[in-house]
């Protein structure tokens, strides 16, 4: 998803392609520009729908007394991301070579600006690439996905407005700043770090922000009692399953769109490979969790299978192009195994993650990033590890500071009585199922 590379390298490549007769047979004039933009628009609306997937997954895995709140947080955070990314985030993430601190901090501060209405080819921002509007739309959806990851981990006990304030800072500053280091052409990119669609840049960042929040916020009342973990089953598993299928669908846009180009035979073949590999990895993750929960617990745990599919998707996100279908399945399967083992591990540390966002997005995200060199000889383990650590340390510390400041200023946790009553009644005064008797 390295937009800046294309910005610099494509004019020359495109010029040479236009000169060749083979190119003329492939696509008409400006066909690359149009097809690339079309890819962004289609992939973008698929990624947009992942917001619905996260929303349904979380609504299904919280208890019914917190459902309205979880729905409220999801539609609010998605909308706030659209403002934060517009006002600062987009230009912070894509400085296009204009840096205040070279490779670290963008020199372009200000709102995102699209091309003029009915722009001509000559006046387009980058005729060799895609419309700025499609690029902005696509990138915004990734930013919003990062924020969605956080809400599930902190469900059932965090106050609405402090959570939304964190979302604004995450989407306007924390996510775009670290994303500029890789996708904006910053220092991690210069080091040779490879992260195709964002196992680290998107998923682990959401995971780190969620981890910092979960530690500072503390577990739900009654989750850890007398040294034992108390299960709090989700209210609606059909909705949670629907959410995972929606995320699975959206992921084709997430990874496929990150090819960033669809105007040549090679690019469209690569997008196709990515779709198929993405599906293979999700299947691998789900099957691994299916078998492992049967073996470990004696019964299949649907919620773990759902998490396993998502972990498979996160695992393949750093490199969905180069693996074969078989290797993609295995990369996803390892993600599924990771989830089944790390969900109880977090409970050992009394870190209460309601939906498994940290195992799925952070731990499987790290695995996916480490798996890149297995199939892509341009990557190396050392650079991948250093980049994971840099992004992780920055996001964890920055998120931690923001959570602490918000906690000190206004508090982040509802009162004990409100938590026991459920956030739907206490914070919103609106139940999800008011006609059901308790």
């Amino acid at each position, binding site marked *: 998803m390295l937009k800046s590379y294309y910005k610099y390298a494509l004019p020359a490549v495109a010029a040479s392609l236009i000169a060749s007769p083979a190119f003329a047979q492939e696509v008409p004039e400006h066909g690359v520009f149009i097809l690339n933009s079309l890819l962004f628009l289609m992939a973008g609306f698929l990624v947009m729908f992942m917001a619905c997937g996260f929303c349904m997954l979380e609504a299904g895995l919280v208890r019914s007394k917190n459902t309205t709140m979880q729905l409220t947080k999801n539609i609010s955070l998605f909308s706030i991301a659209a403002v934060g990314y517009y006002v600062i985030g987009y230009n912070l993430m894509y400085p296009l070579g204009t840096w205040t601190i070279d490779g670290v901090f963008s020199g372009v501060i200000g709102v995102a600006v699209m091309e003029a209405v009915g722009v001509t080819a000559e006046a387009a921002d980058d005729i060799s690439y895609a419309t700025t509007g499609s690029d902005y739309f696509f990138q915004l959806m990734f930013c919003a996905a990062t924020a969605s990851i956080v809400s599930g981990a902190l469900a059932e006990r965090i106050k609405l407005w402090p959570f939304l304030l964190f979302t604004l800072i995450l989407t306007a500053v924390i996510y775009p700043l670290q994303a500029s280091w890789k996708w904006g052409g910053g220092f991690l990119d210069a080091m040779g770090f490879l992260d195709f669609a964002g196992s680290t840049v998107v998923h682990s960042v959401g995971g780190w922000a969620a981890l910092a929040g979960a530690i500072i916020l503390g577990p739900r009342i009654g989750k850890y009692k007398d040294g*034992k*973990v*108390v*299960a*709090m*089953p989700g209210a609606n598993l059909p909705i949670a399953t629907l959410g995972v299928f929606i995320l699975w669908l959206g992921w084709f846009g997430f990874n496929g769109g990150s090819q960033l180009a669809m105007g040549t035979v090679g690019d469209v073949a690569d997008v196709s490979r990515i779709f198929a590999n993405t599906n293979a990895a999700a299947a691998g993750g789900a099957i691994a969790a299916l078998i492992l929960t049967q073996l470990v*617990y*004696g*019964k299949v*745990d649907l*919620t*773990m299978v759902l998490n396993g599919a998502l972990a498979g998707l996160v695992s393949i996100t750093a490199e969905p192009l180069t693996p074969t279908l078989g290797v993609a399945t295995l990369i996803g399967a390892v993600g599924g195994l990771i989830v*089944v083992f790390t*969900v*109880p591990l977090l*409970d050992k540390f009394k870190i209460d993650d309601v939906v*498994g966002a940290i195992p799925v997005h952070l731990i499987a995200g790290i695995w996916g990033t480490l798996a890149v060199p297995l199939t892509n000889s341009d990557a190396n383990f050392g650079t991948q590890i250093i980049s994971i650590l840099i992004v992780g340390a920055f996001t964890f510390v920055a998120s931690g500071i923001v959570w602490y400041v918000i906690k000190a200023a206004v508090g982040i946790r509802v009162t004990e009585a409100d938590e026991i009553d459920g956030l739907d009644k206490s914070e919103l005064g609106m139940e999800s199922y008011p006609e059901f008797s308790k």
Partner: protein
Amino acid sequence: MKYIVAIIQPGKLDAVHDALLEIGVTGLTTSEVKGYGRQKGKSEMYRGAEYVVNFIPKVKIEIAVPSKIAAKVVAAIKSCAGTDKIGDGKIFTLELADAMRIRTGETGADAL
């Protein structure tokens, strides 16, 4: 008159209902309830953590019958609702002092 209250497995309601119709029971009331007896609930796993379900879903049947068929009703419920495993439920038989059909004002056995 007797008032019979039976707590049974939810899946046994249809079989019990059919048997009671045959005996000539003219009406019954059911409700979905939760509870436990000597088995004290059961434990399940969720995301790697064990949890105990203290109150297990059951169906409660309430029937008012003339005294002469009460024993047959209890026997029918026992044979239809039983699986010989724990959790099959219980049947309670109470003395019924009176009854009234609201529409007509009839009382006693005539109201059943």
